C-alpha cells in the first residue's frame, strides 16, 4: 500500500499540479484535493491484495509457540490449530466454510463497492471499456436512507481538507527547484542517513549472531535457503506451465473471463493455510515423502496470482493483433511464441513476482506441518525458522530471517526486476 501511494505521488499529472499551484492551494489542501484522490484507485486495489496476505498470517499467528510460551488468541486460526491437534478433520471443514462465507461477505459489502466508488477517481479522461460494478454501491446511491449515512463523512472530509494550514517550508518549494544544489544536498544527506542506519543494523545483527553461533550455522542456513529457493523456482515453473495456457484460453473469451475473474480473485484472497490440514492428512495416510509433497502447499494460495494476471493480460490483448495473426495464418507454437506470450509477458511477470514472494512467506508455515502428534518436516529455510521459533532459539531465528531476506532481495533484484524491465521495454503494447 505504501509503495502504491509512493508511485501515485510521483505520477501526479503535471497539469493538475500546475492548476493547484496557480489557484494558491496550500500544501495541505493540495494533499487532500489532488494527491489523495489521485492515489485512491491504486490504493484501493493494493489494500484488497494486502488483505488476503493479512488473512494468511493472522490465521497462522493466532496460535503461536515460541520456546516455552504458547499463545492462542481467540479466532479462526487457533480454532484450526486446535482441530489439527485433535485430528478433527470435520472441524477443519467448518473453518473452511466459515472462511468462504466471511470472504464473500466482506468482498460484496466492503471491497467491491469501494472499488466501484474509486472508479470516479480514475484519471483517464476517456471512459474505459467496463467500469467496475457493484450492486451494493448502486443500492447505496439510489436509496435516500443509505445515502444519508455518508453525509457525516462528507462533511468531515470537506472540513478537514479546508483547514487553512499554510506550511512555510524552511527550504525551497518542492517543484520549483528540483535541479538546485540545495535539494541535491538533501538527497545526499538522506542517502547517508539510510546507509548509516543499515550499517548500524547490520553491525548489531552480526554482533548478536557472532555471540552464539559459528560460521557452520551460517552455512547450514544458507544451504537450506538454497533448498527453499529451488522449491520456489520449481513450483513457479510448474504453476506457470499449468496456469498460463488455461489463463490465456479464458482471457481470450471475454464472457467467460468476466465470470471467472472474480472467482479467481476470491481464491487468491482465501488464506490457504486453513486448507493445509486436509493435505497433511493425505500425506500422513499415504506415507508420502514430506520433502516433495509438502511443497505444493507453498504455492496453493499464491498460484492464483499467476492465473488472474494472465487472464487480465489475455483480456487486454488487442483485437487487431489477434485478427492480424489469424489473417496471416499464424497457428500452433508460432502463435504462442510470437503472438500471445510476448503480449501477456508483463502481466505474467507481475503475477509471478507476487506468487514467488507469497511462496517464500508461505514456506514458514508450509514446510512444517502437523497432524495430531505427527509432525512432518521438509528441509528448507521455512522449516529452519519455524523450528527455531518453536524451540525459542532466538539467534537461529534471527539468522534464518536475515538469510531469507537476503535471498528474497537478491532473487528479486537478479531475476524479477530485470525480467520486468525487459517486459516494459520490449514487450509493452501501445
Amino acid at each position, binding site marked *: 500500500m505504501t509503495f502504491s501511494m509512493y508511485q501515485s505521488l510521483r505520477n501526479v499529472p503535471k497539469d493538475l499540479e500546475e492548476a493547484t499551484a496557480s489557484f494558491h492551494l496550500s500544501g495541505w489542501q493540495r494533499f487532500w484535493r489532488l494527491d489523495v484522490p489521485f492515489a485512491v484507485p491504486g490504493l484501493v486495489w493494493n489494500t484488497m491484495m494486502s488483505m488476503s496476505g493479512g488473512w494468511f498470517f493472522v490465521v497462522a499467528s493466532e496460535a503461536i509457540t515460541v520456546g516455552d510460551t504458547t499463545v492462542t488468541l481467540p479466532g479462526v486460526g487457533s480454532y484450526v490449530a486446535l482441530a489439527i491437534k485433535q485430528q478433527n478433520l470435520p472441524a477443519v471443514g467448518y473453518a473452511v466454510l466459515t472462511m468462504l462465507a466471511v470472504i464473500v461477505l466482506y468482498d460484496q459489502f466492503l471491497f467491491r463497492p469501494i472499488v466501484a466508488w474509486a472508479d470516479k477517481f480514475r484519471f483517464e479522461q476517456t471512459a474505459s471499456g467496463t467500469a467496475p460494478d457493484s450492486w451494493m454501491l448502486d443500492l447505496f*446511491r*439510489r436509496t435516500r436512507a443509505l445515502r444519508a449515512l455518508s453525509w457525516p463523512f462528507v462533511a468531515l472530509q470537506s472540513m478537514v481538507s479546508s483547514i487553512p494550514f499554510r506550511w512555510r517550508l524552511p527550504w525551497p518549494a518542492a517543484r520549483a527547484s528540483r535541479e538546485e544544489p540545495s535539494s541535491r544536498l538533501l538527497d545526499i544527506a538522506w542517502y547517508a542517513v539510510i546507509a548509516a542506519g543499515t550499517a548500524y543494523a547490520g553491525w548489531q545483527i552480526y554482533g548478536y549472531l557472532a555471540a552464539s553461533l559459528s560460521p557452520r550455522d551460517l552455512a547450514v542456513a544458507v544451504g537450506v535457503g538454497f533448498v527453499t529457493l529451488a522449491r520456489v523456482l520449481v513450483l513457479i515453473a510448474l504453476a506457470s506451465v499449468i496456469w498460463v495456457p488455461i489463463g490465456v484460453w479464458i482471457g481470450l473469451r471475454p464472457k467467460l473471463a468476466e465470470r471467472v475473474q472474480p472467482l479467481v480473485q476470491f481464491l487468491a484472497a482465501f488464506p490457504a493455510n486453513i486448507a493445509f490440514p486436509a493435505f497433511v492428512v493425505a500425506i500422513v495416510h499415504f506415507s508420502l515423502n514430506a520433502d516433495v509433497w509438502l511443497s505444493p502447499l507453498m504455492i496453493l494460495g499464491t498460484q492464483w496470482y499467476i492465473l488472474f494476471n494472465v487472464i487480465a493480460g489475455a483480456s487486454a490483448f*488487442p483485437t*487487431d*493483433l489477434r*485478427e*492480424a495473426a*489469424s*489473417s*496471416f*495464418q*499464424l*497457428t500452433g507454437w*508460432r502463435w504462442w511464441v*510470437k*503472438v500471445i506470450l*510476448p503480449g501477456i509477458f508483463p502481466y505474467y511477470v507481475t503475477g509471478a513476482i507476487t506468487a514467488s514472494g507469497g511462496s517464500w512467506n508461505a514456506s514458514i508455515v508450509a514446510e512444517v506441518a502437523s497432524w495430531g502428534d505427527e509432525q512432518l518436516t521438509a528441509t528448507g529455510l521455512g522449516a529452519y525458522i519455524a523450528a527455531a521459533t518453536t524451540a525459542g532459539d532466538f539467534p537461529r531465528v534471527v539468522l534464518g530471517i536475515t538469510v531469507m531476506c537476503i535471498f528474497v532481495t537478491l532473487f528479486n533484484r537478479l531475476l524479477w526486476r530485470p525480467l520486468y524491465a525487459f517486459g516494459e521495454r*520490449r*514487450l*509493452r*503494447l*501501445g
Partner: protein
Amino acid sequence: MLDTVTPKPLVDIHKVSRSFPKGSGDDLLVLENVDLTIQSGEIVGLLGRSGSGKSTLLRIIAGLIKPSSGSAACRGEAIQGPPNGVAMVFQSFALFPWLTVLQNVELGLEALGIEPAERKKRALAAIDLIGLDGFESAFPKELSGGMRQRVGFARALVVHPDLLLMDEPFSALDVLTAETLRTDIIDLWIEGRLPIKSVLMVTHNIEEAVLMCDRILVFSSNPGRVAAEIKVELPHPRNRLDPQFRQLVDSIYARMTQRAEPRAPSIEGIQGTGVGMVLNHVSSNLISGLIESLAGDPYHGHADLPVLAASLQLESDELFHLAEALQLLRFATLNDGDLTLTDAGKRFANLETDARKKLFAEHLVAYVPLVGLIRRVLDERPTHSAPAARFRNELEDYMSEDYADETLHTIVSWGRYAEVFAYDEQSEAFSLENPH
C-alpha cells in the same frame, strides 16, 4: 471456335447476411442480403457510414467471421477461416511491438513455410518497394504512424496475395501522411509493381474512395445493405479539382444523405422512427457552431456538403451526423447534398445564449419524440424523477445496446443544454430538480 469463358471472379459473395445476438433475445441484423463480386485487376471500395456493416463484410471475406446465411467464396472455394491468397492491412496498423520491422514483414512468410534465406530476400524487397529502406531493424514504437502503416503494407504485399484487403487504412493518419501514402500506393498500382491482382478497400472518406477505386459500393446502415454501385471511370492519376471528380463526389454526398424528409415524429414500433430513432452524439456546441457558420459568410444560410466538410475540416461521418441533427431539430434541411438553414435556424444564429436555449428547448420537445416521452413521464410521476433504465429498456427494443447507450447519452446532453430536465450520473436518474 473461341471459348467464351467469363473469368472466374476472385471473390463471390451471394446473399450474405450477418446478425449478432442482442441482449433481449432477437438478433440484430448487421448485414442483409449483400451481393458482391470482385474480378481480377480492379480496386473495389466499400463506402458507408460507421455501423453500416462494411467492416463486417470485409472480415467475412478475410475469413475472420462466418456469415449467418448466404455463401462466400474466394478463388472458387468456400471461405472457411482465413483463405490463402488474401492479406489484410489494418486501420490501427496491427504491428507486433516486440518484433522489428523486418521480423514483422517476414511474419506471413514464416507461416507459409518459406526458407529463411528466401524470406529475408522477399522481405527486404517489399520493404524497399514501400519506401522503408533503412528501417529494417527499427521497432514499431520508434516509427511514426505513416511508417507503421507502410510496414503494414509491406507485410501484406510480401506474401503476394491475390486479393489485398484494406480496412480504413489511412484514417488513423494525419492528412498529409495519408495523402502521400495514398498516392504512393496508386502509383505502384498503375505501374503494375504491386504483386497483387485486386484490392478491396473499406473507407468512410468519400473523396478517398473516388480517388482510388474503380468501383464503389455505397452501403446504407441499419441493417447494412448495398444501396448503390458507382463505377468510376476516370483515368489514374486522378485530380481532385477535376470537374468530373467533384461532380462524382457531390452525387455520392447526395446519395448518402438521401433520407431528406424530416422523420415523421411518431410511428411507434417501426424501427428508425419515433422513439426508436438512433441519435448519434453531437454536442450542443457543435450544433450552435454549425448554425452560426452556415448563417455567416460565405454561405448565408446555404452550403454544399463537400465544401462544408473541407472548410470545417470534418470527416464526412461527423458532418452527416451534425447535418442530420440539425435536420431533426428543424434548424436546417438536407437536400441533394446541400444544407440549408430554416427560418428557425436563422433566428437561432442571431439570438444570445439564454434565448437560444429556450428556442432549442422548444424544438427539442416538439421534434424529438424521446425527449417528449421523458418529459411526460417526469411530469406524471409524483416524485418527478425516473431511472434511465426505464428508457434504456424501451430503446433496446428497437436497437442494439451500444446504440441505446449512445442515444441516451445524446438525449442527456441535449436535455441538459436545453434545461428541459436534470440527470444524475451516479444514480442514473432523470429528474426535474435542479442539481444540488
